[in-house]
């Protein structure tokens, strides 16, 4: 591909159609009639919920389809070459050298047995773009551009010796080393904590700008794509909803669906908070200076004291490793506490799950992050939702069924779903079933562990609304564990911020999320991407000032 690009277009995708072919011969269309063009140096953001076909389109620019999928229609023209007509060897000389891919999980993309140098330089050597010493020089240069620490020696390390954010940037270096014309970013910051995401995003943006590389940026987060993309394409169920300049999509979306996505993202930035209920005499659930660790390891939570009032929502926020989920495990007794006390309605709960009474079990229920594994795939909804009713209240079969139907109405599921199994439901519906199962026990407290994290934004929004409605109806208290500050703003009236096992801020949401901040809370709050396209630059400018 030595030809000089006389045409301005780098990539021209026309009427792309990709289908999944099942064993039985049945076909499902994953991408339907999608067209777009990309000029050199331009960044196109692909936005959509899961199943929208974003990643499938991204991979198609490498003329690659996941196993079981096939590109069945349309044309992909890259620098004048019709990609679908290329043979296997020509395709391989394209991949990595001209078009490079950056995946979501760097941890899964690196081989743990080789150093970062070996893996970053491999692409360049494979394609014969440069020799080993040139590749090393280039790798060091990229490490420096990507703000990695000690760029000269960084490559000597193994993947497990660097942090998640650093590994993600190392993957960008791997993608850039052969100087490709097109980069495909597939949710590259989704698995990172927000504070890390800011740094990685900044590095990516600088990289793209300085090298003038064109990019497809795939993400489900409008605020992230707002920082990097020139144009945005919104996808839904494999079809294009709308495409336009980034500012137009974000500020004047034309289609209803885009409007909903934008509105949902703006709501997450709301600054009106739900006020806590008046401090009634006694908290329904409280922890007093709780300390816990796994086996004899270091303290995973250290002196944490929180109080949850009846009918209130207390959010426990923190990044991965902050101990927020461990706190939930200590409260329910899965992990016995070592020091301190857990009080339910003023009474101390036994540390171990096995020593608690049936009534104590009943009054604290839990909802999980992944509804897929929280529901037994072999049971029907009647079994799942009905079991707590039969177990705690000794009801007859007819009474159980009547109560299950009542609960299904409450969570807005059609009654004829009662004999379905979880595999026949969507992610949002499964999460509703988990909520119904928790409600069936008529608890005083429900612990929600990242309940919206695995769901698409619009579905997550519905779940949050449902949870609030249930709270208004039943007066149940929520202990809401999450890393997503947008969720906290919408549902919590009190918040506890955790950092490395300790609680660094605690109080009414209004108070914690407004100045004067605790420094970590401020870092966390300022790291949540906003939908303005100048947000990232502004944050970086502010932080640099602080450093000076």
């Amino acid at each position, binding site marked *: 591909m030595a030809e000089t690009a006389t045409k301005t277009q780098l990539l021209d995708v026309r009427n792309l159609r990709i289908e999944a072919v099942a064993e039985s011969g049945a076909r499902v269309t994953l991408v339907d009639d999608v067209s777009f063009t990309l000029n050199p140096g331009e960044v196109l953001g692909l936005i959509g919920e899961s199943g929208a076909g974003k990643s499938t389109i991204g991979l198609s620019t490498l003329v690659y389809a996941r196993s079981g999928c096939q590109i069945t229609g349309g044309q992909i023209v890259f620098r004048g070459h019709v990609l679908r007509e290329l043979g296997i060897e020509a395709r391989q000389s394209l991949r990595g050298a001209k078009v490079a891919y950056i995946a979501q999980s760097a941890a899964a993309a690196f081989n743990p047995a080789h150093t970062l140098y070996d893996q970053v330089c491999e692409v360049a050597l494979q394609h014969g773009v440069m020799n080993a010493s040139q590749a090393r020089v280039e790798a060091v240069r990229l490490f420096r551009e990507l703000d990695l620490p000690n760029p000269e020696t960084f490559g000597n390390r193994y993947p497990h010796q660097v942090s998640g954010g650093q590994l993600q940037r190392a993957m960008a270096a791997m993608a850039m080393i052969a100087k490709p014309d097109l980069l495909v970013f597939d949710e590259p910051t989704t698995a990172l904590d927000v504070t890390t995401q800011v740094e990685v995003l900044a590095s990516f943006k600088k990289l793209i700008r300085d090298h003038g590389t064109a990019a497809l940026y795939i993400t489900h987060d409008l605020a992230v794509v707002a920082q990097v993309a020139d144009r945005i394409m919104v996808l839904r169920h494999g079809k294009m909803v709308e495409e336009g300049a980034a500012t137009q999509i974000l500020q004047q979306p034309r289609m209803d669906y885009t409007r909903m996505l934008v509105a949902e993202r703006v709501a997450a930035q709301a600054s009106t908070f739900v006020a806590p209920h008046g401090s009634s005499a006694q908290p329904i659930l409280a922890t007093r200076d709780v300390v816990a660790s796994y086996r004899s390891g270091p303290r995973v939570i250290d002196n944490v004291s929180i109080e949850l009032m009846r009918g209130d929502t207390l959010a426990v926020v923190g990044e991965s490793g902050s101990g927020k989920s461990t706190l939930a495990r200590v409260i329910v007794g899965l992990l016995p506490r070592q020091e301190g006390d857990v009080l339910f309605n003023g009474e101390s709960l036994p540390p171990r799950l096995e020593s608690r009474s049936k009534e104590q079990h009943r009054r604290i229920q839990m909802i999980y992050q992944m509804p897929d594994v929280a529901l*037994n795939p072999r*049971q029907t909804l009647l079994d799942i939702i009905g079991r707590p009713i039969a*177990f705690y209240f000794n009801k007859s079969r007819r009474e159980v069924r009547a109560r299950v139907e009542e609960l299904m109405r409450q969570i807005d599921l059609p009654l004829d779903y009662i004999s379905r199994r979880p595999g026949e439901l969507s992610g949002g519906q499964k999460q509703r079933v988990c909520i119904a199962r928790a409600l069936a026990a008529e608890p005083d407290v429900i612990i929600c562990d990242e309940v919206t994290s695995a769901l698409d934004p619009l579905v997550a929004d519905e779940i949050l609304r449902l949870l609030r409605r249930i709270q208004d109806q039943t007066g149940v208290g929520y202990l809401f564990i999450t890393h997503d500050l947008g969720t906290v703003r919408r549902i919590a009236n009190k918040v506890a911020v955790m950092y490395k096992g300790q609680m660094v801020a605690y109080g009414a949401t209004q108070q914690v999320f407004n100045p004067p901040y605790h420094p970590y809370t401020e870092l966390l709050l300022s790291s949540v991407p906003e939908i303005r396209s100048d947000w990232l630059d502004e944050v970086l400018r502010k932080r640099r000032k602080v450093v000076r």
Partner: protein
Amino acid sequence: MNVLGYRLTLTALIGWLIILVCVGSAVLAPWIAPHDPNAPLGQRWEAPSAEHWFGLDQIGRDMFSRMLYGGRISITLAFLATCLAFAVGVVAGFAAALLGRWVDVALSRIADVILSMPILMSALIVISAVGSSAAVLILTIGLLYAVIVFRVARAVAMNIVVLEYVEAARLRGEGLFWVILREILPNALPPLAAEFGLRFSFAFLFVASLSFLGLGVQPPDADWGSMVKESALAIPAGLAAPLYPAAAIALLTIGVNMVVDWLLSLHSRPHGDNA
């Protein structure tokens, strides 16, 4: 071809047919056997004829009738031993996975000790000490195989107990048996069903081996293993007699394995996927 919503392959179909024929003929032996299996009817090693399809054995008994009755004994012993192995092994394996800590450590180390000696050797020691009878055979084989089933069941359950629906049941305060029977077992069934088939064919071969060594089914009763042994003398004479029971052993083992492969392929199919 679909059976109960599962796609039946040709190999699975053949496997099921073999099992059906073997089990069917064993069950119906008293009615379909043409002769008394233990009565001498003519010359030793008489060649196959219309009257005696597989010929006569070393003391002139009808081979075909003895095969039918022998299958009855072999299959029953192997089946009962496998059932015992599963009843003990699955409960112990699930309990070890679910309870962890010292329960798991104790049961696993006991299993290690038992398996440190070849199973055939252990069985020979027990049977030669206690004496051979149907009950002793079933208990010995069943309990020794329970150790192997324990390991498989524990491994399968380990992957299930970490799932949140099991945690949800524990948080609800459910008892151990409810969690084992209602939450874990239904999800462990496909790999365990395959293991059952495999274990059955091993138990069946095990009974045959013991009989061949003279410690299994005692004369004048026949099982396929002892029939191979009794007619082994005919091999130097160039007679086909020992091949019939040997072929029957091989056939049933292969049939069971065909079905097991099919069961495993059902399990490895991605489930819960409606795409």
